């Protein structure tokens, strides 16, 4: 995205081990009131994969949040309301007093995205945030003692996984534009002038396949047709 005035902008992979220390360095030692994350992947169409990647981005942002949030602080992050969203809600509830799922009017109703709003940061006693051992990204592979698994009681551990359905709140004004509706353009603008469509404030970034499109144009599409 284009840099904003008064905002320090860094470009880095939030899941990379070098990124969180970099962010911390910019924050200095001042604890933060709020951490927000709008990170999202280009969806692939494989829902399980997309939801997994989205929750990994959320987890990376959460790891930053645990290192910088002051007690009672907030965390807002984009979330995909897919199959296992209730597990993510449950996990966030371990660190925050209130977890709500909010969907603003500007987010298309037909899209799976929403925002999880976590208020009142209060990690459990004894919890120590650490960049070396971030949440959910365990690197040690423990050797399994076979005896433990034979008990058979853990057979459907999967289904016993903690799930929590966060309350949902539709936010934004109902009288605002509906992102799923079609509108006819007005004839005149608010000054009575003939309506002119303006360019977007932030134009879309060039897609990664821009060069491929150019190549295709040059080759005249011969032998490249897909449909």
């Amino acid at each position, binding site marked *: 995205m284009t840099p904003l005035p008064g905002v320090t902008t860094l470009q880095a992979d939030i899941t990379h081990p070098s990124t969180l220390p970099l962010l911390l360095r910019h924050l200095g030692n001042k604890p933060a009131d709020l951490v927000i994350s709008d990170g999202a992947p*280009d969806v692939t169409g494989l829902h399980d994969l997309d939801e997994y990647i989205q929750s990994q981005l959320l987890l990376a942002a959460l790891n930053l949040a645990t290192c910088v949030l002051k007690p009672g602080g907030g965390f807002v992050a984009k979330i995909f309301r897919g199959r296992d969203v209730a597990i993510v809600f449950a996990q966030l509830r371990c660190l925050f007093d209130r977890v709500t799922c909010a969907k603003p009017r500007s987010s298309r109703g037909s899209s799976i995205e929403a925002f999880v709003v976590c208020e009142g940061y209060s990690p459990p006693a004894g919890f120590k945030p650490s960049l070396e051992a971030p949440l959910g990204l365990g690197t040690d592979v423990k050797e399994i003692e076979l005896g433990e698994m034979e008990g058979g009681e853990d057979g459907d551990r999967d289904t016993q996984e903690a*799930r929590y359905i966060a309350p949902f709140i539709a936010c934004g004004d109902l009288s605002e534009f509906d992102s799923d509706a079609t509108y006819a353009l007005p004839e005149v603008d608010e000054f009575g002038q003939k309506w002119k469509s303006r360019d977007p404030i932030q134009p879309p970034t060039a897609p990664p396949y821009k060069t491929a499109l150019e190549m295709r144009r040059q080759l005249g599409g011969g*032998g490249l047709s897909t449909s």
Partner: protein
Amino acid sequence: MLYSAHLHIAADALNSQDRVLVAAGTVFGQIILWSAAMVPSSSGINALKNPKTYRRLLGHEGSIFGVNISPKYHGGKCYLASCSDDRTIRIWDISQFDSSLPLSDDTEIKKTGFGHEIAQEGRCISVGWGHGARIWGVQFLPVTKESSIELLSISEDLTSRFWAFDPGQENSGNIELKSIATYRLHSGKHIWSYALDFERGLLATGGADGKIGLVRYRDDQASREEAWGMDSVLTQIGDSREGLGEPNHKVKKAHDAFKEYAALDNDCFAATTTLGRVLTYRLSQKRWDLLGQWTGLKGWSILASWEDSDLIVLGGNNGQVGVLDTASKQEWWWQSMAGENGKVAGVFLGRYYILTTALSPAIFSLHSFKMDHSESPPVLIDRETLLLQSPARAGDTKFLVTSLAISQRTDHLFLGSRTGALAIYDLSSTVSPLCALSHTLVHPTDAITTILPLKSGILTTSRNGEYSRLSISPPPNIRLTKTHALKPSFVIEGARQEDSLTLWGFHGKNFTIIDQTSQHEVHSVACGGAHRSWTHRLNWYFVWTKAGKAHLARTYPRRKLLQSGLHGREVKSIATHGDLIATGAEDTLLCLSTLSSSGQLCPCAVVGTHTTGIHALQFTPSGEYLFSAGGAGELLAWRVRSANEIVLGGTCEGWSDLRVEGFDLLPVEGVGERGEGGMLLAIGYSDSTIRLYNFSPSTGAFNLVMKGTYKTCCILHVKFLPNNDGILVAGTDGYLSIYPLSDPFSPTSPPHPLPLPPKLVEKRIHQSSVKALSVASRANGVYIYTGGDDCAFGITRVDTKNSVAESWIVPRAHASAVTAVVCVGEHVLTAGVDQQVKLWKVSEGEEGITVEMREQRGSAVADISAAEMAGGGKVVIVGVGVDVWEASDEL
């Protein structure tokens, strides 16, 4: 974040340990090549020690979705292939990777997004372009030739491709990665998975459409195209004379050129030339032979064949028609049209019939004969000629014949014309000239290219891209009824109906054969396009002229589907009538399936008429008509006889910038001009308008009778309430609204559409979009069950007489949007994007409503969008895939 990785275990020459070599591709276009030593431990699980990073390969402009380390090739060469969001495949030479020093520690990197600062060691030696969308996987094949290293890739663009490069070119610094074969067996979007069997040369692919395709890739790629210039053919047959009796002038021989082709059998086809030569080519012997040369075929010749009989027919410039036995070289010639000496304009065959037409035909000649096989060689006997009156009536455009078929069973002759008309003659009649029994426009207004008599009725194909099945009522009042018609959107030239329907024709610059029943490409030959001479023997070969040369490509069936599928993109809508299931999806296809008693969906007809996703479907109560709607404001009416028989019955006006997400229909009496029954349709649009149309099945016309605007939000559902109680509307605003419906609704279409009356009831149920809605008439009122984007399940009882609605809500019924609600007897089933299916018992007591969840199960279907009851108490849930549930009321 890594999107891809490939591991390769190799013995480390220096130490006695094995090392695992890892190639990993990141979301931001980097490839990291590193390795670690595998240290055995007492537990039997190896530990990894001493990691070294060798390369950070940069160049891709998008996420890396696949990496593959090649086996060791000749001369110790080793390569890495990568594929990406940027639609390229890149080849990196990593033969020497371990001779360089490892790179510095990872955590020092400051920039991990795009726009990396540091370019490190590692050379991309070639870039392959060709895929039209993201490439999900790439893999090297074991080497078969020293000069060629081959790879396979799979993509979102539905194709799998084979690529090759010549490693010998590496020193010249310019290696070309060539696409050598492309296979397309899937529809919709995405090939997600594949498997290769190098030994047998097999490739299997799996798509988002649920299909599994199989390609015999090695055999397919081994049988290459052949091509001949006329020169080489003449040299081969040792015939270099120019014309009959002319001296041997070598310089002149290039003047001859290929004219027409006809397939004789699996191994042989015939060709005519502009100088009147008739040739045959034998594929197994790779040999051309000259059958002869005739002055009557100079400058003008028509060629046709009866496949598998050795016989060909020739039409000349002098009105002569000839039958030639290519085996015995016997020939029989006669005048095709009594009293006409002009050229034979066309010949069309049935066994053994020849229809000849002249250039301005009012009369056609139908020649018949038999072959007497008691003689050796067989001889042509019993030749007769029957005259047919052209079916064109006075003032009509000429009936130019483009196809012929004879049904031995009914003794009917069918002729198709260049403008899409079909004529039927009764060959048992003795009248001369014979007049057509019927003459019907079947494919306005393009040529009928094939007529196939079926067990009952006929199948026709047209150059306008349509094929249809027609039933024929018995004489004397012959009437043709289209029972099935579809447009697979290519120029159809031929068809064969066996267990499945195979169609062939031209698609862009390709000659393409498709299996219409299972919807996959059987073969595709880049021939340059439709305008050329060609012949085709199904499953064997295709012959065509291109730039003066005769070309031949084998079309052996090297591809098949191991498993058929349904939609290749998200299913958005479903309608059912007993065991007949209609599904509509973002792939723009409408699919008719039957539901087997074991709960299996068996796909039958696939309709591709919609131009965008299909978001709403509805059968009439009789099941005779189906309506489909979606993007571009499209709403279409279909007449459905069975899962295999569907014909477009009407098209409602559309608006390219609008969507239809919901509509409903109500059978009404006396709609059409003749007062017959019809349908009243209420349609909701994305700009909040509601339109009511009368649909007349007999004319296929939609007449606007009422029009109004709901609010400004997008309308998602429109339903006629039971007992003409009103029209229910719900949208993205979370409200339920009811408009009154005057009772009885006036069936005559007013000159101007009426305005929408004021709402009877308006009530907010959900915080935002009403995603799912179901209406049930119960003993104590009409109930509306709703699912919301707000995760809630809503229950509303309406009393339209008194304009009251009472609502109850179950918040947090699901963990995400509730997108499907169906009444299962006394219970209500809900399903959502959380992939949970829940069954609720809703009961009414003294204190109002109590709701109890009786059962909850997980579904494998992601992005569930709708559910519907089907025959046998089954519930069909659709989304990314389809689930069928047995729902018993006893739960």
